[in-house]
């Protein structure tokens, strides 16, 4: 064996036939090509920028933005910097993505369940919904909902009043909200305390069950605490009932909470579109659990709710969560289409910034960085989750 090895080593192999050396050479060539391309593009860009006398760098972020933004979660005016304007945009993106994700999961689960229902009518309707929504571009849907808002709904003078305290007009939807009161802060505190207590109770109940086998009604008690604590605080602090009702003043509603048509059109479009995909994910997940699992669980005497909670869901979720997260990420990325209907999300604000300052490279880089941050943090979460739920094989 030794002789053979030596003889092979002695025989001179030209470097282009040695796989290891060839691999190194090939990689060097690839890097050189990519490097050259990058150098070529950068040098062209620098020359072009110099010709158009555009300064590079992010110093423009500290300048005054001098444009207004329709809606904002933090105080903002045209006198603020571009950096703050972009922050407003990022927060608006997070706002619509967060609310959208919550609503999408709820609606998607309902439609997915309807698709699996033994009720023929419901199942077919769900199938039609899924097929239709998946086959129409999201941008078209956004335009459609936005058009419905500003073309079909009446002006704010003749606003529709579908329910008590809700006004629908082409200026958006105005809701009645409770008048701000110090009690609300204490209610929030009570809710947080309730969360901590619920967490402790869950731990205690699990330990007790492991020790004695007795089951404690965790869900009911938790719900009681989470709802009861804030309600109790509210009652103790004098039960403030004053409501802030939207009133028509001039051309728009004053008071209450007004949600812009852009936001609603965007939210509606994103939720209805993504829910169709989520419904398919949920359906596939539940179907992936074989029938035998349910039958086995029922045969050992579990009731329907524990069958779902202890047997079906843990297995279905393992299949559901990865594609579900990618759908949530899709929703977040699709929220960038807000720029087309004028909702001030991050892309829209960045676009305005680019148009005003001419800092196109920095602007687009910022857009990419923000979305990359969202998707990378999602994939970190996914890796953590996959490790947590991975099947433990024996």
């Amino acid at each position, binding site marked *: 064996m030794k002789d053979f090895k030596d003889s092979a080593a002695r025989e001179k192999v030209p470097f282009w036939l040695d796989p290891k050396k060839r691999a190194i050479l090939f*990689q060097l060539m690839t890097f050189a090509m990519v490097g050259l391309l990058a150098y070529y593009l950068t040098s062209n860009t620098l020359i072009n920028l110099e010709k158009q006398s555009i300064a590079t760098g992010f110093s423009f972020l500290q300048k005054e933005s001098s444009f207004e933004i329709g809606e904002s979660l933090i105080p903002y005016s045209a006198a603020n910097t571009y950096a703050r304007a972009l922050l407003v945009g990022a927060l608006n993106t997070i706002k619509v993505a967060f609310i959208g994700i919550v609503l999408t999961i709820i609606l998607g689960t309902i439609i997915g369940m309807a698709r699996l229902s033994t009720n023929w009518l419901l199942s077919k309707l769900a199938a039609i919904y899924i097929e239709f929504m998946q086959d129409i571009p999201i941008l*078209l849907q956004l335009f459609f909902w936005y058009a419905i808002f500003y073309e079909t709904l009446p002006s704010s003078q003749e606003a529709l009043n579908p329910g008590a305290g809700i006004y629908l007009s082409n200026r958006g939807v105005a809701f009645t909200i409770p008048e701000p009161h110090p009690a609300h802060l204490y209610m929030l505190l009570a809710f947080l305390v309730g969360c901590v207590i619920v967490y402790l109770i869950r731990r205690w109940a699990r330990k007790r069950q492991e020790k004695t086998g007795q089951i404690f009604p965790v869900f009911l008690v938790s719900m009681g605490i989470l709802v009861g604590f804030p309600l109790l605080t509210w009652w103790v602090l004098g039960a403030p009932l004053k409501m802030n009702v939207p009133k028509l003043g001039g051309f728009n509603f004053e008071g209450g909470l007004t949600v812009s048509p852009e936001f609603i059109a965007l939210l509606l479009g994103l939720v209805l579109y993504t829910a169709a995909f989520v419904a398919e994910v949920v359906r596939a997940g539940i179907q992936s659990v074989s029938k035998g699992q349910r039958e086995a669980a029922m045969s050992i005497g579990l009731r329907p709710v524990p069958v779902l909670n202890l047997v079906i869901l843990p297995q279905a979720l393992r299949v559901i969560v990865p594609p579900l997260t990618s759908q949530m990420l899709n929703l977040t990325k699709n929220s960038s289409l807000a720029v087309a209907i004028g909702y001030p999300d991050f892309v829209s604000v960045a676009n305005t910034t680019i148009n005003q300052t001419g800092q196109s490279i920095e602007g687009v880089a910022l857009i990419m960085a923000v979305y990359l941050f969202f998707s990378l943090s999602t994939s970190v979460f996914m890796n953590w989750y996959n490790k947590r739920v991975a099947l433990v094989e024996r």
Partner: protein
Amino acid sequence: MKQVVQAGEIRPPITHIGVIGWVKNNLFNGVFNSILTVVTLFLLWKVVPPFFRWAFIDSAWHTTSQACREAAGACWSIISMNYRFILFGFYPYEQHWRPFLAMLILFGLLFYSRDRSHWKKPLAYGWIIGLFTMGLLMKGGILGLPSVESTQWGGLPLTLLLAVFGLTAAYPLGVILALGRRSRMPGVKILCILYIEMIRGVPLISLLFMSSIIFPLFLPEGVTFNKILRAQVAIILFTAAYIAEVVRGGLQGMSRGQYEAAESIGLNYYLTMRLVILPQALKIVIPPTVSILISAFKDTSLVVIIALFDLLKTTQSVLSNPEWMGFSREAYVFVAILYFLGCFSMSNYSRKLEKELSRGD
């Protein structure tokens, strides 16, 4: 034997067969389902007849916009009076037969390619010739066809062009990226992973912005590409990353034995991939590739944002005409139907293929 009772004489009770049995089994099995059925039927009754009335009975089909505004229902006249502009954009009016013929060639090729028994070499040549002819028809300039600048292309042909050329060019790039990602060379692997994850992490719109604003800066002075080509490049770069991920799935589905068998008969990397691995791996991933084609087709609508006159943008410019302002619903429903027909036939086809392939033929 003669004493055997004829089974046919005893029929199941009437409530278990036929229409009644079906309704009972599928709509009213249990209290909860019965309530659901009744509620759903009630909602349908509330929604469907008024919609039907709006869309078909009270609607105006081929009138002036004035007559449309007086009609109680839908105004389909916005489509019938402007369909040439919606479908073909600013393409010279007398020359509309050219994009129309190009689309016919495309549909013909697509239709012929449906059958997998036609997937042979002549079909590939047919596609190359077909795509070339389509380009020639659109562009003109020879054979007595007046030249039409690509800045005038628009409407449905542009949408189809962006989708079909986008996918055709993105496919080989995606396969190379997927092979690179599975490569044993760390340098190549890292580059491919970086590219794929970067692109998949950002929305298409940021790439389109890049193509429309930054791309001109990348080029030396005097060299310019037109807007459509730049958007096309962005769509290709974007789609390639998604195709790479799909192809990677197919490559991972190949068993080790396939690689080892190819190596054992002395095939090198290139031949292993070309003759053994890729033909099998690409066959597995045909259905997900069709879904990428569907998303690419839908995503072409995003070029509206960088002001290319695709199908959606031509519709919007009809809507911005004061004469036809206010009929967005009808116009968008029409565009939605076009997109739906395209996507639905593709997804239907993908399901059919999936069934065929899983039968293992």
